[in-house]
């Protein structure tokens, strides 16, 4: 079990800085997710931990051992890490057993021990009966589990996963998500998981690091970053959110775009603000604070995705699916809001939300 300490790590390819002064400690046994849009630098960070990339500056410790920094550089094979690649990287010329046994064979473990360990780990990933198969005889999900088994077989202190589920279909992705989490909990190892899928991150992580343009935007538990985003980018990237421009004064926020209607506000900000509200936090209520007209509904089964015109603004409301039959287009409605997120309006919203690729 290992902790990872990252001290001021910066990585640049030529003039292109992909990672800016990363500072963090991943605690022993934690499930860490590096989340962000593609090109944000999350994979680079993972590859620095693995030892496939040398950081331009900064230091990296695994437990208390300096593995990268100054003149020290421990090559990947000396770091005792398990890793699952996006393309699985299952060697096509070896069968499942040999693929999985490889890390142990490299460590010159006794044959019997290798057999026992491989069988055990294949049991963990539900592949016991496939040991003699070759990768081209396996499905994508099975290959993915071979890669996972190979990463786990030598009981690594640290497991790195680079978008391991992105090549799987939706159903399989969901079940693998919980399997990986289950295995991690069982073995109690530290996991660093890279993904651009926020649902995956939310479902599995102890802590999420949301990265954009090489900078960590926020880190915290899924609840923390979902409910109290540090900035508009975080709010926008995780879940659905709508932004409304308004002005805060006298305990209320007035929205010019909604014909001057307002909502109560007890927070500290004053003047021009950006209010971010998640559609599921706007609801139909008799004693609501905003009035408007129901314009459209999109019935999705579990939820009903509605559009309500409030002044000149179209507000998205996600309500329970069973409310569908109570509602009718063209009717006036009143809306209540909860859990609003208020940011200073610095006029940079567009730029902040744009994703650099």
């Amino acid at each position, binding site marked *: 079990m290992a902790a990872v300490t990252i001290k001021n790590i910066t990585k640049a390819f030529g003039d292109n800085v992909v990672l800016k002064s990363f500072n963090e400690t991943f605690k022993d046994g934690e499930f860490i997710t590096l989340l962000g849009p593609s090109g944000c630098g999350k994979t680079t960070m993972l590859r620095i931990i693995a030892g*496939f990339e040398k950081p331009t500056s900064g230091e990296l410790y695994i437990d208390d051992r300096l593995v990268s920094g100054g003149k020290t550089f421990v090559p990947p*094979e000396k770091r005792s890490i398990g890793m699952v690649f996006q*393309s699985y990287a299952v060697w*096509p010329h070896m069968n499942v057993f040999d693929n999985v046994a*490889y890390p142990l064979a490299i460590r010159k473990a006794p044959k019997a021990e290798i057999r026992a360990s491989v069988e055990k780990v294949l049991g963990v990933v539900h592949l016991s009966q496939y040991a003699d198969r070759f990768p081209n005889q396996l499905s994508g999900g099975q290959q993915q589990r071979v890669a996972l088994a190979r990463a786990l077989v030598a009981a690594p202190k640290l497991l790195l996963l680079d978008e391991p589920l992105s090549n799987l279909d939706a159903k399989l992705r969901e079940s693998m998500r919980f399997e990986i989490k289950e295995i991690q909990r069982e073995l109690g190892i530290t996991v660093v998981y890279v993904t651009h899928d926020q649902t995956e991150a939310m479902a599995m992580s102890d802590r999420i690091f949301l990265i954009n343009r090489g900078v960590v935007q926020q880190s915290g538990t899924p609840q923390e970053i979902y409910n109290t985003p540090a900035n508009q980018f975080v709010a926008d990237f995780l879940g659905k959110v709508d932004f409304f421009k308004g002005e805060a004064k006298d305990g209320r926020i007035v929205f010019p775009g909604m014909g001057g209607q307002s909502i109560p506000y007890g927070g500290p900000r004053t003047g021009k603000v950006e209010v971010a509200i998640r559609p599921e936090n706007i609801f139909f209520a008799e004693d609501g604070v905003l009035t408007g007209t129901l314009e459209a509904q999109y019935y999705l089964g579990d939820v009903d995705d509605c559009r309500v015109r409030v002044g000149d603004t179209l507000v998205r409301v996600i309500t329970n699916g069973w409310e569908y039959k109570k509602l009718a287009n063209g009717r006036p409605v009143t809306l209540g809001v909860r859990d609003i997120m208020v940011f200073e309006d610095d006029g940079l919203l567009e730029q902040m939300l744009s994703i650099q690729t």
Partner: protein
Amino acid sequence: MKDAMTPPRRDRTPILTKTILALLFLLGAAVIVMGCTGMKEYSASGFSSEAAYRAIYKLGGEVDAAWDKKLGPQCKALDAESRAALDETAYTLLRSAWEAQKKGSGAELDALLDGKEGEARAELVHRLLFTSSLVSGPKVGTANRKELAAIPASGLDGFRRQLLEAVTDEGAALPEAAGKLAGKLTGQERQAMLMQIWYVSNDSMNSRITEQVNTLKKTVRDKGAQLDAFRMAARGEVSFIWQLVVSNSRSAVLIGILLCLDAVLLTLLMLGERTWIPDFKWIIILVIVDFLLLFQLMPLVYMLIKAFFPDSAFSLETFRRLYTYSLNLDALKNTLIAASATMVLGTLTAFPLAWLVGRTNLYGRRFFRALFVLTYMVPPYVGAMAWLRLLNPNVGTVNQWLRVLFHLSDAPGPLNVYTLPGMIWVLSSFYYPYAFITISRAMEKMDPSLEEASRISGASPLKTLFTVTLPMMMPSLISGALLVFVSAASCYGIPSIIGSPGRVHTVTTRIVEYVSLGQQGLNDATGMAVFLMVLAILILFISDVLLAKRQYITVSGKSVQPAIVHLRKWRVPLTVIVSLFAVVVIVIPFATILTTSFKIDVGKSMFRANNFTLSNWKTVFGRIETLNCFKNSLLYASVAATVGIVVACTMSYLLQRTRLRGRKIPDFLITLGSGTPSVVIALGLIMTMKGNFGINIYNTAYIMIIAYMIKYMMMGMRTVVSAMSQIHVSLEESSQISGASWLRTMFRVTGPLIFPSIAAGWFLIFIPSFYELSMTTLLYSSTTKTIGFQLYEYWTFTSQPMSCAMAFGILLIVVFLNFILNRLTKGEFSI
């Protein structure tokens, strides 16, 4: 309502297509039958060439014209008595002329005339006599003809009447012009001559008749057969169609077979596709397939048949005779030993080089890569010449140095290039790039995460190399090795320059020697060639069919950045080793070629007094002969490359953009062609393209261009195919959705995108065709010599320094073209 009333229209396309296919097949069958009948007719005729029928047909036409316009009217103008006498004389003359040709033919003549009476009989006799007189009558010299032609038109009628009267009346006075020719003759001789003068003096006896008569004389040698020819021409027995069929009977059979094959192939394709809607693309496929069947497969099959059925019965006699002859057996052994050793040496060199250059941070790796690829482009015989200069036991530069360095005596040695090991050394140093290119391509395309997974599992870079990289590379490694093997085994340039003087024969040199020995030699050469051919096809099968299935690295065109291994403290020493290798294998040989070209005495240093001259260069490049060869090479290689690249582009489109059944057939044939050893291709063409199968392109430029295309077309095709595979279909589809037609899309989108590769493909066919030697040696004629062959001649018969000057000139061209090629493809091209 009206629409509902109309019954649904049946689509008639399937029926139409089936009918056309059936008709095509029947047409083919009919042409075959016609061709066969023609061949039968010809072989029964005793004529020495099918062209006789064409001459007979044309002569028949001339006889008709002459009789109708001149001879007939002049005969009819005679009074009855003279006419009867003339006819009788004509018969007598004819009968004796025929009897003179062949004993007993008088009876044939009578049988021919039997039942004919009066005017009809007379006309036939006259026409027959006219024809035979033209071909085998008494001679009228050119001077006399001129004199006859000088008779004024007004006097001609009188002249001719006088002649005819003189034929039957020996006492009659002769006109002056005839008197000179027939004045001293008597009896039948006089009559025959007078008739001949009569014929000749008619102005229908023009140059066209003379031409047909000359052809007839050439094509019908047999005296008896000549009578048949007279008869056929006089009676107009050969119709236009018939002369066409008989004189082209072999070609007709060939065309018929192709038509039938095409019809069957098309039917099979359509059955497989479950559609009866014709697709224009199939026609293109069939045209390419027909070309390859004709010029590639047929020669190979013919050679196989000839080798196993030498006298149209199965026999291994050819092989027994060949391989019990120790020289051939040695050649066989030498070829196998040399090729195997070259394969091992070449691959052992190529793999580490490919790894160092492709996957490590070796200094100057890009430079080295370009350099090793360049060697692939250099004609092997240039390498042979260089190593000969370096390792000649007497005056080789290296030997001279070694003697000085180790204070050896002046005896020849210590190294001798004229040996089997010498040949292996030169072969290896020129064929390792084949393995290098194959391996480094695969290596650079390998997904780096496969190796990273090994590193993270705890394996060191070296361990990873041996447990992951090497096993993954194995299929490419083996196919690279096999490519080296088959190239070395079928190489002619190096063994002919190094092996032959040292009496180290190989299969290829034996084949070329046999070919120069005439018909029996040609048969023996076939026996040797079959061995080489079977070897090559076997290897092609192993690497393209068996190994391809185990190919882990799919060259998808997806460009991956391979992980670079840091060599750390090994970086400098390894760079030094690679540099030394490059100096020994590339720099020294090429420099030797250059310095030799300035020498007078090849055994002495260029810098010795009075041993430096520019005259070699002046002589070589000043000669008209060299310039002609250069022009030939340029022309043939350009034509081969241009036609080849058109085929390559078509094939690439079919392979990459269609799911059409049958598109793999031409692809397979093209691959087979490039895998066939050069000498085998050339020998096959020699044996089948000299008219015996209806195509006669022997000793022409066409045969060479076709040979170049068969051998090198695949390189162009592979390049264009891989370029096209990298262009996503969506690029073309978006152009089409924007309203551009297929053709416009090809010109505006696909064309410009793959243009560099098309140009590169062109050069890849052009370069080897330009300096080709092995096939040219067998196929050249005195007017179609190429620069490669000229160089070889200079080397063997004239002067080594001069040929070195030429070789260096070729080297410069190759380096320059290679530079263009690299710019076009960014160093990535397939072999």
